[in-house]
Structure formats: structure tokens, C-alpha cells
């Protein structure tokens, strides 16, 4: 099937409502999830493309992990660093804010998306900004910052290559670390031809250089640079930004004003914690020893320094994070350092694609935290989209118990809205299973009528059966076969004292 987007009906991305914030009702989200998942699963070409793109991840990551004297012990330590900060978050935030302001920057606190947007707009207005450059920042996707800025008449350009491509395509990121991993080079060439007037090319290198050339003037001319932040260091009052391209460094170096929008959970207590977390973030995320640029900012340009912004602002965003903190069972999901490893290894992500989730944070960790982050609606259907294989938990460098949290979400959903039909079904099964003769009779009926299930298209089973092949029913029950088995041990007379085959 030829296509220019991953689903037959291109995913519109979260419909943007700068005033409200919440996009769709829970029911709508679930319906759309099922629809998009079905469409994407059928697109075998694109699934193969996605798998190919991720294939190299395993080898590079494992090669890098092998350089650790013990990766599993290092994970324990990374877990400790984040656990410590999350469980003392109030103290960490106060220390960070005090230290950061002592360095000449300004800290702002935003309870929700609307508050964060208005704080940032106010900073931009006060700076009299004309041009805004932005580096990759998932929290800004969470609060739909670009739409809010554009609604106020400000132009804003995403400088990260993947985010820039997504901005031109009018789509949200497909994967929160690899935003345009679903786009083929030919599509990017066409996109650049259309928007930047460049010559068509199939070379990833040439395409990268087109974006590089286009962006350089923008760095020099921008008045305000907006970035995210990967860590807030309480001890030193610095924010830490991890990146590969150098665009975040330029964004925080050239404009007059630097604004960083960071979730409150990003705290660590000590600078030394980064000696553990920075390499592990890179290894788990992309299989690098360290990403290309890991930069700490303690404030605006200091006395005696020859460049850098005159103002630096950090906006600390809650937006539902305190609600996760209030659930002790899932509190550890705030330890997430957004490396994206759980997406890269997730069989569901690889089969339904990033857009199907309909969330800012895709994949297993997104399915855990989204029901908390979205004030309205119930996103628990995301927790059903899991094979519970545990690959995510295994890949997580800070040891978040991701797949158990998916189970917790399922349990919570059932508690909130009990499924009476399911309960009746389980009771009936229990009653039958406890009565061997009834069980045998039921089995005999099922063995003879299994083929009917597919034909009858019963309303409750239809969806489940539609994409599955039913096995052929055996002629005899398991118990019958067991009774009449030809056991080599029995045949040869090798039995123990109780007559059981050895």
C-alpha cells in the first residue's frame, strides 16, 4: 500500500486546544486507539520499516552495556539516585530553586499547562521578542506550547532535526526520543523541497545539511531560546540538558533570553548523581557512551563571560505529576529519565506505532503515566495494550516496574468500573471447573462446536476472533489422552516406590 503517512487515515495528532488542554474524551481516545491500531497493524510495510530502523538499537546498546563492569548493579545505583530525589521532592525543589536564583536566574512555578503557557508568553512579551528558537522539549508538547505561541502571533522554529521535520509535517513526535523515525528519507526530501526550496536528494547527510544551513541564521537572529531540561541538580542549582545535535547548546547560547520548561520530577540531589545517570541515559536511550552534548546551566551569562543569554528562566511544571507522587504504588514512574528504551523494545509499540497512543509520551511508560497526567478522562485502555512481557521493565535503566504498573492500572480500572459480564463468566467457569464431570461434559461440547465460534461471530467474541486463528479441536480431551498415554518409563517398568514413572 503506497502511503505518505503511517496510517491509511493520517493521524491528525492530538487536536490542539490551547485554552483547554485536554484533547478528547476517554471514550473517543479508546475508539481512536482501536481504529488506529487496526490500521497500523495492517501496514506491514511500515511495520517492517520501523523494525529495521530499530534493529541497530539492540546491537549498539548491548555493545555499550558490555563496557559496564556490571550493568545490573549500575541500574540499582541509578534507581537509588532517582528514588532519593523523588521521595524527597519538596526538599529538592526548594534547594534547586534557591540555588538557581542565587546564580542569577529566575524560577517560575506552573501548576498546570495553562499556567505554564501564560508564564512563558509573559516572559516572551517582556523580552519584546520577535523570533523564537526552540530545542527538543517534550514538556512543551505536553502543554501545546507552539500552538499557544503561534496563536499570539509569535513564530517559533523547532531546531532539533526530527522535531523540525515533524513541525513541517504538522505532526506531533512519533517517538519521544526519535520524533520522525517513521518518516522515510524520500518524504523528508519532498518536505524540504516544498518548504525550503531545496533540491531533491536521497542522502540523509545532504538532508541534514539542508536543515543545518536553514537553521544557522535563525540561531543568530532569535531573541528567545526555549529548551527543556533532563535533570535539575538541587545541590548546585543547575539544569542539565542532554542532546546530540548541538541545537540545544546554540539555543541556550545565542538568544538574549533562555527559557527552560522542566517537569518537577526531574530533580536529582547531587551533581555526582549525574556521573551515574548521564552515561546510563545515553546507553539505554541510544547505545552511546554519553550523548554528544551534556550541558549544565546555572543561570544567565555570568560576570566576565563573553556571551550567553542576559536572562534565564526555569519554569517548573507540575501538570499532574503530584498526582502520580500521591500514588505510592506508581510513584516510581516519576523516576523516568525519558530515555525511550521501553519504547524501543516494546512489541506493542513496534506493532501499533507511536501515533496510535494519542499521547505526548508513547509506549509503555506513556501508558503508565498518561492516565495520571491527563486530568480528564480515563486512559486505562492503554494499559490493556500490553503483552505484559516485561521487556520494558527489563530495559529501564532506573528500574521502574513498568509492566506491573500496567497491571495496576488494569486492576484500578476494573475496581472503578467493574465488568459484570466478566465477573459472571469467571463465576461460571469456576463452578464448572470445580466439578470434574461437568467440566468433562463441557469440554466434549466445546471440542465439537469450536468451529462454530468463528462462523457465529458472537458479538462479544467477534473482535477477539477476527484477528486470530482458532486451533483445530483435538478429538480427545487432555485427560483422556493422559490416561491412555504410552509412557516409556511405564513401558520399561521404571517406576518409583509409589508406582510413578521415574
Amino acid at each position, binding site marked *: 500500500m503506497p502511503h505518505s503517512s503511517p496510517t491509511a487515515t493520517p493521524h491528525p495528532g492530538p487536536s490542539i486546544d490551547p485554552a483547554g488542554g485536554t484533547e478528547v474524551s476517554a471514550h473517543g481516545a479508546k475508539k481512536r486507539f482501536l481504529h488506529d491500531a487496526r490500521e497500523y497493524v495492517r501496514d506491514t510495510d511500515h511495520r517492517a520499516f520501523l523494525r529495521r530502523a530499530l534493529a541497530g538499537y539492540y546491537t549498539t546498546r548491548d555493545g555499550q552495556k558490555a563496557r559496564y563492569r556490571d550493568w545490573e548493579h549500575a541500574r540499582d545505583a541509578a534507581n537509588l*539516585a532517582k528514588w532519593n530525589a523523588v521521595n524527597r521532592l519538596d526538599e529538592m525543589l*526548594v534547594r534547586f530553586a534557591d540555588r538557581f536564583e542565587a546564580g542569577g536566574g529566575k524560577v517560575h512555578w506552573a501548576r498546570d499547562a495553562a499556567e505554564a503557557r501564560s508564564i512563558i508568553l509573559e516572559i516572551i512579551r517582556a523580552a519584546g521578542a520577535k523570533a523564537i528558537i526552540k530545542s527538543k522539549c517534550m514538556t512543551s508538547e505536553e502543554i501545546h506550547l507552539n500552538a499557544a505561541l503561534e496563536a499570539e502571533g509569535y513564530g517559533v522554529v523547532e531546531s532539533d532535526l526530527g522535531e523540525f521535520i515533524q513541525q513541517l509535517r504538522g505532526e506531533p513526535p512519533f517517538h519521544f526520543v526519535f520524533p520522525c523515525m517513521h518518516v522515510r528519507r524520500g518524504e523528508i526530501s519532498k518536505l524540504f523541497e516544498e518548504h525550503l526550496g531545496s533540491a531533491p536528494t536521497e542522502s540523509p547527510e545532504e538532508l541534514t545539511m539542508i536543515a543545518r544551513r536553514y537553521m544557522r541564521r535563525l540561531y543568530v537572529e532569535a531573541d528567545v531560546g526555549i529548551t527543556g531540561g533532563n535533570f535539575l541538580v538541587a545541590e548546585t542549582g543547575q539544569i542539565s540538558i542532554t542532546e546530540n545535535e548541538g541545537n540545544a*547548546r*546554540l539555543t541556550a547560547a545565542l538568544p538574549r533570553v533562555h527559557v527552560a520548561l522542566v517537569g518537577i520530577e526531574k530533580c536529582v540531589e547531587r551533581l555526582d548523581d549525574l556521573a551515574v545517570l548521564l552515561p546510563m541515559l545515553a546507553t539505554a536511550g541510544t547505545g552511546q557512551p554519553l550523548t554528544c*552534548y551534556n550541558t549544565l546551566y546555572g543561570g544567565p551569562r555570568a560576570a566576565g563571560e563573553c556571551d550567553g543569554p542576559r536572562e534565564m528562566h526555569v519554569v517548573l511544571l507540575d501538570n499532574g505529576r503530584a498526582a502520580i507522587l500521591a500514588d505510592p504504588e506508581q510513584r516510581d514512574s516519576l523516576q523516568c529519565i525519558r530515555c525511550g528504551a521501553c519504547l524501543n523494545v516494546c512489541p506493542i509499540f513496534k506493532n501499533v506505532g507511536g501515533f496510535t497512543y494519542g499521547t505526548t509520551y508513547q509506549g509503555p511508560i506513556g501508558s503508565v503515566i498518561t492516565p495520571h497526567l491527563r486530568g480528564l478522562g480515563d486512559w486505562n485502555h492503554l494499559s490493556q495494550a500490553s503483552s505484559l512481557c516485561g521487556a520494558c521493565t527489563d530495559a529501564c535503566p532506573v528500574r521502574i516496574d513498568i509492566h506491573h504498573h500496567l497491571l495496576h492500572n488494569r486492576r484500578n480500572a476494573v475496581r472503578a468500573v467493574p465488568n459484570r459480564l466478566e465477573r459472571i463468566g469467571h463465576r461460571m467457569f469456576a463452578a464448572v471447573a470445580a466439578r470434574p464431570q461437568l467440566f468433562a461434559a463441557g469440554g466434549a461440547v466445546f471440542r465439537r462446536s469450536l468451529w462454530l465460534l468463528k462462523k457465529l461471530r458472537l458479538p462479544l467474541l467477534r473482535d477477539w476472533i477476527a484477528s486470530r486463528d482458532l486451533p483445530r479441536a483435538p478429538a480427545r480431551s487432555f485427560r483422556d489422552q493422559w490416561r491412555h498415554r504410552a509412557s516409556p518409563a511405564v513401558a520399561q517398568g521404571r517406576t518409583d516406590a509409589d508406582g510413578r514413572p521415574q
Partner: protein
Amino acid sequence: MNARDAILARVREALTVPGPGPHQRAGEMAGHGAAPHPAPLPLGNLPVLALEAARPWLPDGGATPEERLAMLADNLGKLKATFHHVPTIHAAQDLLFSIARERDWKRVAWHAHPLVEPILAGIPCATHRVDGAAAVTADPATESSLRKDALEACDAGITGCDALIAQTGSILVSSATCGGRSLSVLPPVHVVVAAPEQIVATLADAFDALRERHGNSFPSMLSFITGPSRTGDIERILVLGAHGPKELFVILVG
């Protein structure tokens, strides 16, 4: 209540309910249907710091200066940076000048630094110093984009560094000691000049070196540079020189 107090109040309220300890799963907490588990560790009183817990298990940084040097060179090679070790300032000059001629550099940017200055003397192209008195004392109100343009037009940025890290092949630069924030990232080529004594084993050692050098007041920007700028955003294929330098040279003198 202002936003700060409201958020802190929510956080404090949330933390009144104890959660699992580190390395502990929610299901292992008492009262969750599993066997009772010892109470979570007292907060603020960790048995061990994360770094101390991790130190024996993180990638090695080399035990001797020779090992560290070899490891640094190896890592820089893997990162597609170019590493040269030359015996004298004079040899470093020869090397830099030949790179300049080969690439037909018109203008290079630099900053005052005990290694950069002598190596640059006599380079066969124009030079642009970024940290002159005018730049440092510029009036913010009248500051134009002229200086940014001047740097943007340079073919290379030549800087010193605060440390070289054997464990990862990284270069630590700071805004106070390496010519500000943009010199090491805006020009298409970055040349780092360093002395062998600046090589440290691990990131943790680099933090120690920073504390030693800057005490309690760090420069406004510290950056660990690990190889030339790169991206994998197009089909996960590696391309160098996304926005920062396409080429990174490390010249070790002595």
C-alpha cells in the same frame, strides 16, 4: 496561595503516604498481599550515595596515566573525533597550520588561553578573538548580533578545556574558561588544545576537578562534549555535523 506554595503543598501531601524503598516493587510492600517487607529506608539517610554504589560497576576509566591516555585516544576514535598527541607547542603549531591550509580556512576564532595563544601565533589565516574586553563589558542594551555573525562566519573555533575524560572520550568545557558558550559549538570545526595532566579517568573525577578549580561558584555553562555533533533522526542513520561542529580535533601537547 501562589503556585510555588501550592505545588510544594501537593508534593508534601503526596509524600505523607510512604512508598516502596529503592529497588523495591510496590507488590513487595506490606499490605499489598505479599509477605511483609522491612519498612522503607529512612529518607535523607541513605546507606550509600548513588555514585558510590555505582562506581565499581560503571565503565572503566583506566588506573594509570598511560591507560587513561590509551583509553581516551581509543574512545575519541570510536566517536569519529580526530586525536593527535604531539610533543611540543611547535609540533602542535605545525599540525594546526597544516590542517588550516588543507581546509583553506579563512578565519579562525579563539580565546585567551595559555595553550591556544602560542599555538595560534603565525597561523596562515585571519583570527577572531571572542573574549576581548569589548565583548565582556558590552552594554546589553546596545549589544547587536554583529559578534554572533562574526563568529558564525569563522571556519573553526580553537579552545582549551577543563578536562578530558578517558571513560567516555569527552571534553569538558566551560563558559568561563573556554571562550564562552558558542565558540565550541557554532563554528563547523572545533579544535581542542589540552595538556596530558588534564586527562581524568571518569565523569565523577571531572566533577571533582571542577570543584577544585571553581570552588562553589561554577561558570554559568559547563558542557561535556563527546564527539562531533551528530544526528540519527533520518531513518536512524548516523550523520555528523547536525548543528554543532562536523569535525572535532583534540590536540594533546606534551
